């Protein structure tokens, strides 16, 4: 049995006292629901690195992003299909927009310090045939981003966000999706190797809506992306796909939290990453909470890591918390493996040289996810980028 008591406060932390006796493996000491969310910067002390949600992150290198200081917005190039608009809203409008609250120090600072709150509107019943494209470029300085993407009922859209250049960037992005809508959000991190990027992406899935969040992380010195999904009504479907490739010295962290409260919703999380080079570090944390009310939930999460060279480290932590027995399915898989020499031998025994063989195997490793992105320009670009990553060490 579990008990959820929710105390709602206006501008302070939301405290959710949850407790679970579920015998499921990987249940953390504290329920995932108990984490602080708040509009107030003061509710989030500067992380020391000992906190559960910061324990893998090199926080010492992120001081600039935890400081209460103003920055300069990233340059933004946008290509907006007909009917799509960009405007800005006030803090009050944002807080009433259905967008979830900031959930860590970096996100609350992004919300507090961003020069404005941008809103991308995709009106109800609009069916886009071309993606909305936003290219965000950094000039090597501190930047804060705060964006809300509002997708109206029954709209159909793909939004591609690309991050380039150098920056110390913290970001709060909310995607609030109306009933029956069908949305794909792709976020591509192709920063320069010195860039720092801390992001919180919230996805609110409308009743019977289908939302896909796709993260592609290739560049950056430290990239940490927290993607949270919740459901505004029953029948929603959320899919999170991720591909990352960490080289020497890079820290890439992807944290997912799918909060199943509405009944009869689905979630599917699949992340795959490759690592090469000294001290390349990746972190994947997949939290799924199925609350007592979330009957008929069907969820699955998977993370696979391919370690190409010595000295790289992949952390992979799935957490599944289940508070009701009335579910359709819940599973997770996590595996980290070294490059398989048998595969290399097989390909080489067919005349294929070692570099080409390696490239085939790594491409193959990613193929199942890349092929499902469904945005051809991203799929092609990504495969080429993976080839380039491999050539860099060949």
């Amino acid at each position, binding site marked *: 049995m579990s008990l959820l008591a929710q105390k709602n406060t206006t501008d302070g932390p939301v405290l959710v006292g949850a407790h679970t006796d579920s015998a499921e493996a990987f249940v953390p000491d504290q329920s995932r629901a108990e984490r602080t969310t708040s509009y107030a910067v003061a509710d989030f002390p500067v992380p020391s690195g000992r906190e559960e949600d910061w324990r893998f992150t090199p926080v010492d290198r992120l001081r600039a992003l935890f400081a209460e200081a103003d920055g300069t917005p990233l340059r933004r190039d946008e290509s907006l299909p007909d009917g799509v608009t960009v405007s800005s809203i006030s803090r009050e409008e944002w807080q009433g927009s259905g967008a979830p609250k900031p959930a860590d120090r970096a996100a609350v600072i992004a919300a507090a310090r961003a020069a404005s709150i941008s809103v991308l509107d995709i009106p109800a019943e609009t069916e886009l045939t071309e993606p909305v494209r936003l290219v965000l470029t950094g000039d090597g300085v501190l930047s804060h981003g705060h964006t809300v993407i509002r997708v109206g009922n029954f709209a159909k859209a793909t939004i591609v966000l690309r991050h380039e250049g150098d920056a110390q960037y913290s970001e709060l992005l909310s995607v609030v999706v109306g009933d029956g809508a069908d949305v794909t959000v792709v976020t591509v991190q192709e920063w320069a190797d010195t860039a720092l990027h801390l992001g919180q992406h919230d996805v609110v899935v409308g009743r019977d809506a289908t939302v896909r969040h796709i993260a592609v992380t290739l560049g950056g010195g430290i990239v940490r992306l927290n993607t949270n999904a919740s459901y505004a009504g029953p029948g929603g479907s959320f899919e999170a796909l991720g591909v990352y490739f960490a080289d020497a010295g890079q820290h890439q962290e992807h944290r997912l939290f799918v909060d199943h409260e509405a009944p009869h919703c689905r979630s599917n999380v699949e992340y795959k990453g490759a690592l090469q080079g000294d001290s390349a570090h990746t972190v994947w944390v997949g939290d799924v909470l199925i609350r007592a009310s979330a009957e008929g939930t069907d969820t699955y999460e998977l993370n696979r890591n391919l370690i190409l060279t010595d000295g790289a480290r992949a952390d992979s932590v799935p957490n599944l918390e289940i508070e009701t027995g009335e579910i359709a399915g819940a599973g997770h898989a996590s595996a980290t493996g070294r490059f*398989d020499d048998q595969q290399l031998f097989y*390909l080489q*025994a067919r005349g294929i040289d070692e570099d080409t063989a390696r490239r085939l195997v790594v*491409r*193959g490793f*990613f193929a199942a996810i890349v092929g499902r992105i469904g945005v051809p320009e991203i799929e092609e670009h990504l495969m080429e980028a993976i080839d380039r990553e491999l050539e860099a060490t060949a």
Partner: protein
Amino acid sequence: MSTANHTLVIKDLHVTVDTDQGTKEILRGVTLTINSGETHAIMGPNGSGKSTLAYSIAGHPKYTVTGGTVTLDGEDVLAMSVDERARAGLFLAMQYPVEVPGVTVSNFLRTAKTAIDGEAPKLRMWVKELKQSMSDLKMDPAVSERGVNEGFSGGEKKRHEILQMELLKPKMAILDETDSGLDVDALRIVSEGVNRAKETTGAGVLLITHYTRILRYIQPDFVHVFVDGRIAEQGGSELADRLEAEGYDRFQTAAPASVTSA
């Protein structure tokens, strides 16, 4: 059809493998010559070192050659990398083909063909040839869009190996227990594939097997009995019949009696 004559010469080959218990000698002096167009059957009990011989010729990094030579038309095979050996014309159909997830069969085959020939095959001819060979081997055309050996049945894996032999046209093919795990129909189809490839390319074949069953479809010119890391006896196809009747017992020398004291 092919009139070129190639020769694979294995001389006094010694091979070890590193195990948890230390270095273990598996091949203890193997000598064998295979010419184009010849089929040599190697038969022997489990663990006698047949796969080790096959892998050593192909250059698997797990095996260390400690003595002897392997040459193809006089070229030192042991000095070549795995892929160089394949490009020189050696082919190994593996006993346990490896899964390479996400790499489609069609992509794999085209990449291998390009590597072996040194140039990409003409697209239209290639597609036609691939289709024909797959249909000859009674392979589902949909297989070409699946990952290499990914979720293949045992029979599908073996057909896929022989498909590669047909398409890559090696000078010398080593077939390691290609017959194992095949039912009678599949055995016939796969054997016909081997015979077709031999017919068109004139390849020499080293056929490793436990059973005489496959030798009814692929006629061997020579039969070698392989025991304890070396060839214990050789003969013509009549030797296979004797093995069928008598088993390997007569070749397995009894271990020296050990004295145990209470």
